């Protein structure tokens, strides 16, 4: 009889994409035991069920699966398609400040109509140093809550400078519970985002609207698992390439947005065994480049719009260039892409008997792979060789753009077109081609890190060190809430930004903590 730990030594990563639902089984050493690609179904459940069935056939004992990790675009799709969104009562506390931009300003009309159960801009809020703008008007908030009872599925509360002082949002949260009970979902902005009122408020409202979607996806996964008699711990992938426990995800469903690219990058790290690298995911039409730092995707500093709404989420820093297996090579070979034959590669490319010169043809002619059903005419040789050289230069340029500093890092290539990347790329110390690169996204979902983030403004002088330590503690606490092992969680990122024109020098610190999942 195996010990209890050995009996739970496998984990399953499932990535529900727009086209395919991929699943992999990893063992305790992060080795791929088995994998599958199944078509995504409209109800999501069908694709998940098929993918799970396929990988369970590859292992002898389903009870060995201790954890299931899910990467899903359900939240993104719900917002983009305005479907299954909850009705949100939107409360901002800060008047008379902030009245120049009421809540949900500049939202697309249809999204606003789909989400808003009413908006209130109540008196209250804080200055940056914690003094009050005005006393909180609880009576006004109570009347508003009573007016939305029965129509609101959720309440979003955003107070001015709540990332500095949380008390007011918490008290309003208690009032929400008192008036509307436990059945409505509640999102408090200081738990969702950072300083930058309108973006944080938008993110908080979207989060509140997504609780139902989160419940549906969670329910679908639980159903598929219970049909198999399985009761593993379940996790969701989030946009920074880490995981959150199901309970945490159900409170912060908006954090699942953007997990797709994060999973590919993170999966490349696991498959290649490197922690600091540039990752290229080469598809049929484009190549996406991302950066791994200490095993996590580098995040973009650019503001992110979701469904037409400005938010302050951090997404993986990814650039796309128009190079893939189906990319067209011009007649003289001097221009490559961005046009692509896409999924018609198998009929239109020269190597499949077609008449279109593609990068796959150039790669095969250049000896980087051998596949296809037809040989390439000698008359194409010069054109394809030139096209491949142009593509090589474009890969090199993109690697240079993504590079972090003067030191060269390895380039990890994944995806179906990975063979197109040459063995030597300027700016990369080496090119790594891991096995199972086709399902890097599902592997990325099956990773075993959880993270938390905290943002604070701290004095630059006496007390700075203590304040930064406190911010680090908060980030670690969040990581533990998300499922990380309290004994091994560590700070993986600490950004300090000096602030101008304040009475006393101050610094904004943004801290991220991450650690392996605690054993169940």
């Amino acid at each position, binding site marked *: 009889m195996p010990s209890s730990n050995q009996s739970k030594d496998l984990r399953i990563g499932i990535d529900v994409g727009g086209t395919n639902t991929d699943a992999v089984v990893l063992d305790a050493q992060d080795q791929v035991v088995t994998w599958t690609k199944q078509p995504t179904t409209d109800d999501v459940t069908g694709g998940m069920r098929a993918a799970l069935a396929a990988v369970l056939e590859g292992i002898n004992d389903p009870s060995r699966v201790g954890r299931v990790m899910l990467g899903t675009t359900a939240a993104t799709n719900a917002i983009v398609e305005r479907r299954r969104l909850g009705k949100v009562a939107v409360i901002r506390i*800060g008047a008379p400040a902030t009245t120049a*931009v009421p809540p949900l300003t500049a939202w697309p009309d249809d999204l606003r109509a789909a989400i808003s159960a009413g908006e209130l801009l109540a008196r209250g809020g804080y200055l940056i140093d914690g003094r009050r*703008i005005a006393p909180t008007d609880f009576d006004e908030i109570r009347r508003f809550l009573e007016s939305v009872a029965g129509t609101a599925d959720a309440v979003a509360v955003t107070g001015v400078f709540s990332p500095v002082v949380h008390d007011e949002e918490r008290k309003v949260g208690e009032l929400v519970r008192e008036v509307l009970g436990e059945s409505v979902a509640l999102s408090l902005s200081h738990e969702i985002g950072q300083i930058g009122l309108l973006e944080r408020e938008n993110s908080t409202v979207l989060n509140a609207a997504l609780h139902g979607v989160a419940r549906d996806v969670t329910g679908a996964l639980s159903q598929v698992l219970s049909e198999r008699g399985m009761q593993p711990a379940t996790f969701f992938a989030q946009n920074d390439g880490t995981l959150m426990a199901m309970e945490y995800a159900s409170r912060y469903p908006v954090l699942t947005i953007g997990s797709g690219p994060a999973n590919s990058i993170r999966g490349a790290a696991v498959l290649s065994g490197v922690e600091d690298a540039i990752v290229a995911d080469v598809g049929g039409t484009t190549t996406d480049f991302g950066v791994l730092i200490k095993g996590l995707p580098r995040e973009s500093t650019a503001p992110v719009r979701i469904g037409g709404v400005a938010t302050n989420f951090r997404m993986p820093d990814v650039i796309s260039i128009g190079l893939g297996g189906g990319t067209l090579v011009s007649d003289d070979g001097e221009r490559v892409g961005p046009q692509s034959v896409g999924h018609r590669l198998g009929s239109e490319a020269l190597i499949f008997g077609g008449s279109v010169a593609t990068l796959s043809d150039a790669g095969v002619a250049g000896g980087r792979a051998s596949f296809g059903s037809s040989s390439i005419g000698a008359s194409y040789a010069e054109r394809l060789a030139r096209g491949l050289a142009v593509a090589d230069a474009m890969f090199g340029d993109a690697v240079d753009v993504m590079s972090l500093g003067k030191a060269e890092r390895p380039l990890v290539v994944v995806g179906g077109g990975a063979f197109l990347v040459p063995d030597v790329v300027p700016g990369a110390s080496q090119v790594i081609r891991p096995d199972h690169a086709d399902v890097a996204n599902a592997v990325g979902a099956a990773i075993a890190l959880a993270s938390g983030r905290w943002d604070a403004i701290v004095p630059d002088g006496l007390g700075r060190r203590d304040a930064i330590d406190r911010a680090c503690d908060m980030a670690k606490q969040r990581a533990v809430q998300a499922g990380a092992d309290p004994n091994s969680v560590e700070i993986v990122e600490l950004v300090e930004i000096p602030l101008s024109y304040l009475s006393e020098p101050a610094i904004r610190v943004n801290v991220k903590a991450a650690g392996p999942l605690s054993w169940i």
Partner: protein
Amino acid sequence: MNSVAFLTYDMPQTPERLREITVADLPALARGCAVLGTGGGGEVESGALIALSALEKHGPVPLVTLDELPDDGLVLPLGGIGAPTVGHEMIHGIHEAYLMREAIEEALGATAVAVMSSEIGGGNGVVPVALAAQLGLPLVDGDEMGRAFPEVQMVSTNVAGLPIEIIGLVDVIGNVTILRPTDWEWAETISRMVSVAAGSYALMADNVISAGRMRGAIIEGTVSQAIRIGRVTEGAADPVAALVGELGAAKLITGKVVEVERRTGGGFVRGSVVIDGIGDDVNRIVRLEIQNENLVAFEDGVVLASVPDLITVVDMHTAGAIATELVRYGQRVSVLAWACDPLWRTSRGLEVVGPQAFGYDLDYVPVEEAARAFI
């Protein structure tokens, strides 16, 4: 007063001076103000939302020249004073503009006839559109800087020799301060303290005077200019080239950011950025010195451009301006520099905002001479 000579300077005639600002102009205005912000001036996005809310409620804002205003009517030169980070969280209240007008009109016993941006660069170039709309007043097509500067005394009315008479400050809570300082330095000192007391952000009217006395003492046409700058890159095949053409700028370098250093001092974010040339600029290195705004560009220890001329870092593909706090390693950028308004090049102008006013031991050389090779 040695300030008379430049008063006769004519702004280049623009064929398309706008007569009003509508919702459709706001994205271009915001982009243009970011370019004129020379890396500082605060972010433009929330300013654009403030303007959007106001225009949706009150309709378009007429854009006027000082010549169209009555001599004795007051012009309110408005802008935010304080920490841009705070302004991003603690957005303006709609009461601020009304309280400001009421207090100023009462103090001066005259009627406000127009709003003006005190600083066209950055968010302060965009928000006055909203304030004008709220007050039902026209907006003056001009400002007191033609760019962004960090301090109260760095305004054209000071350089033009107008005395400092009255400053108004209104905070988000509703406190109103009317200040009658003895000189510009006290105006800066006390205004700064008031804004700090109010949570490090307040709405300020920087030296309210009549339209008649203001003529010749502001930089005209800058609102139209900002909108033109924002429009010229829209759909352009080569946005940076289009922007260079519109500004008449020198392209100092196109390259990759290879070093970013920041530190705080005296309330300012200081630092430097190093750009390593690519393409035609390979083997060249340009260093920018920063104090909230981009102030000096060096190559091999030689100045290519310096304050008060404008230096802006733009994305080499989109030509979107990149604020100093968002510059980071690896970005591909072009650095553009172009001539400031002639008023800043007078001896009084250079005294107020020349390189030495920012602590650089440098003699000012106009960008069209210093960067002749790159025009």
